[in-house]
């Protein structure tokens, strides 16, 4: 048994360290450390509740809007505020813009570059991977950054800027849209659709979104296995065995994404249990955060976030990360695009997960599929704006009360729990997607989702930063600044 300390881990958001025990060329156990603590939950204490809308987006520069949306929803819950339909649609378009940009950034900038490494030099696809995905020089890396830059101009118009907008209010959006602006926004969405249909999929988004089984996907792939970056990924995934790499816990959490006027979600909430092939109802009351192995006070044991506490205890014995360990009804769950599409009953994702489990391949597949599924919905939401109707309900927040805001960020389920007294925040707790995925062991000693997924990962002779470990870690698209906040 040898021990390997891996870090600094780049091409993830924030800082990450992984300690591996290795035996017989495989990872025998893993400990995941989120090595930075900033104390946002402490900073929020004592603030006017509306100030959260300035502070929480700054938890994370890549999930900034997601944090704003969850906070606005928690404050709306606190105040019993309902958004007008226009506010709901604009909020969804803004959130979708960020979520899809994150999927694009993950694929082109964070995940695919690892296949350009010399370790893969003998593979038949390596030269093509280098041409497309070499950091800073790859043709598709550069094209994706340009497409992303144009894409985020949607938020220049709709949200003033990205990241760190304050346009997202409990009552809707501060930025009304004129009819001529909607025309321009739709044209901008079509421009991104063009990039995806030309470069990523080499196919219509609707055709990709309609793929309903692994067999259909493989048949479509076989037509032209390197045309478009998605099909090159499928080629590499098959050759590199990504479908068997990094299996997660088999339970998947989604709070439901993009609520529509009337209350339904574009992607329904739920907890998917792969072993029983069943979708269970989400019970947010069953969430607990366990701080046994965090450098944080764990007085009182595991707590529901509504009564959660975040207090540093840097010398605590047995602790190895700043991250708490959230559990749902005592169980480790995985969250992200894969969970969202399992809960939303996308047939291809359900079929792929039934065959392979939640692995490096199926996580990336679900993410790319969302690019195809969400862009057409954004076009619909923009069309549904009634331009001269209201965008924002403005009602005062009560001095005392509680609120919960559940949302889906690119990386999965994000929850905010707020409590106010005498017009001030007295408790604010955040459980972020990567808190779920990269949690440490809990009081029972059960490892978190990544810690489980890394077990069995192959380590090549002489590797100090094993490439397969990097694939598994990055397949979750971790956001470490959100994890601990």
């Amino acid at each position, binding site marked *: 048994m040898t021990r390997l300390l891996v870090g600094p881990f780049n091409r993830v958001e924030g*800082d990450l360290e992984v300690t591996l025990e290795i035996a017989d060329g495989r990872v025998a156990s893993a400990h995941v450390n989120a090595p930075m603590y900033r104390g946002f939950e402490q900073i929020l204490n004592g603030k006017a509740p509306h100030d959260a809308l300035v502070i929480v987006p700054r938890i*994370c*520069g890549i999930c900034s809007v997601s944090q704003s949306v969850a906070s606005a929803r928690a404050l709306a819950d606190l105040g019993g505020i309902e958004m007008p339909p226009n506010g709901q649609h604009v909020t969804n378009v803004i959130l979708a813009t960020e979520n899809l940009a994150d999927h694009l950034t993950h694929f082109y900038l964070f995940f695919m570059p*690892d296949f350009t490494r010399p370790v893969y030099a003998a593979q038949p696809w390596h030269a093509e991977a280098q041409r497309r995905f070499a*950091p800073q020089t790859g043709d598709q890396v550069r094209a994706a950054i340009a497409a992303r*830059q144009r894409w985020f101009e949607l938020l220049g118009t709709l949200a003033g800027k990205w990241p760190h907008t304050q346009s997202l209010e409990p009552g809707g959006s501060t930025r009304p849209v004129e009819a001529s602006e909607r025309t321009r926004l739709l044209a901008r969405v079509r421009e991104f659709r063009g990039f995806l249909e030309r470069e990523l999929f080499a196919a219509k988004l609707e055709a990709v979104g309609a793929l309903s089984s692994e067999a259909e996907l493989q048949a479509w792939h076989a037509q032209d296995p390197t045309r478009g970056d998605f099909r090159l990924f499928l080629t590499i995934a098959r050759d590199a065995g990504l479908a068997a790499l990094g299996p997660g816990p088999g339970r998947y959490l989604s709070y439901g994404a993009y609520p529509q006027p009337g209350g339904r979600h574009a992607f329904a909430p739920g907890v998917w249990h792969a072993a029983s092939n069943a979708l269970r109802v989400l019970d947010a009351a069953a969430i607990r955060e366990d701080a046994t192995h965090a450098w944080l006070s764990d007085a009182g044991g595991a707590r529901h976030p509504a009564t959660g506490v975040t207090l540093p205890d840097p010398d605590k014995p047995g602790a190895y990360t700043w991250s708490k360990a959230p559990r749902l009804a005592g169980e480790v769950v995985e969250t992200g695009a894969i969970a969202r599409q399992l809960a939303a009953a996308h047939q291809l994702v359900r079929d792929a997960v039934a065959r392979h489990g939640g692995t490096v391949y199926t996580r990336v597949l679900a993410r790319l599929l969302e690019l195809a599924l969400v862009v057409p919905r954004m076009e619909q939401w923009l069309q549904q704006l009634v331009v001269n109707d209201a*965008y924002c309900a403005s009602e005062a927040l009560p001095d005392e009360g509680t609120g919960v805001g559940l949302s889906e960020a690119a990386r999965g389920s994000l929850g905010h729990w707020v409590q106010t007294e005498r017009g001030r925040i007295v408790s604010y707790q955040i459980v972020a997607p990567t808190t779920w995925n990269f949690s440490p062991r809990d009081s029972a000693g059960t490892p978190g989702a990544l810690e489980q997924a890394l077990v069995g990962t192959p380590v090549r002779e002489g590797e100090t930063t094993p490439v397969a470990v990097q694939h598994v870690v990055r397949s979750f698209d971790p956001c470490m600044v959100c994890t601990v906040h």
Partner: protein
Amino acid sequence: MMAEIEGMGSALNVLWLQSGGCGGCSMSLLCADTTDFHGQLRDAGINLLWHPSLSLASGAEVSEMLDAVLDDRLRVDALCVEGSLLRGPNGTGRFHVLAGTGLPMIEWVRRLAAKARHVVAIGSCAAWGGITAGGENPTDACGLQYDDDRPGGLLGAAFRSGSGLPVINVAGCPTHPGWVIDTLMALAADTMHLADLDTLARPRFYADQLVHHGCTRNEYYEFKASAEKPSDLGCMMEHMGCKGTQAHADCNTRLWNGEGSCTRGGYACISCTEPGFQEPGHPFHRTPKIAGIPIGLPTDMPKAWFVALASLSKSATPRRVKLNATADHVIVAPAARKTWIK
């Protein structure tokens, strides 16, 4: 790989590190207005030695590179630090230990800053402490050379990098991609000198402007026709907490993400380029007032004049401007009149 880096010859070698922030300044940087982000940097003579989001090197490869810098085997021309420096708990820096190294980030930054020709604070966290230093500042966060508006910070008021300049504060939350690119290009061209920095060591090319300049709500400002609630079109200074008339930045002339700015997005400027902006002493979205008059008056404007002009302009407000100010769409359009002389 190391040979490749050293082979870059005279290019400006940029090493980018992140600590107690959100990574948002890097994400903002990628929104730079160009069709070829990496090509633009390269053509300007800028070589990214390593960036947390943009480089292949990970783990041991990175530690080796940092060691090469400390051993003078690798030259760093611009050390860019994003995020505040976390001195706690109790001065140990353990709130951020750089992964894989066992060494607190504040120690890495101290050592690397001593080797760099220029040190650049990317964003308000690295410049002053920023949002991370908010509330009771649980992590004892500070900027590279400032603690809010007090000189000092991690490196101390007397610190000068190899070039003789203090830390260059490209403040903003996030910072504008253009501010970063223009700064790096000026450093690559060797055209940024002490006289090009303002009294807070911010590049003057953006810090000598006010957010008010180019604000699309200027007609409402002129007539003190004020917004009263989110999504209203009127001026946000009187009620909504807007500090655009005092905030140093060119946000309304050098726009964000195409055609954006905070005020164009319908919300207040919170003066995020200013040290200490995170603790304004009042709720961000409400203007603090004494006897109905905003405490924060436009920069360089005598209070008596402001009061006199405000009451005069309020009484002269056209009906159109008054009605539109509290609506979310233009409800009275400007009358069509001829502007030429018969």
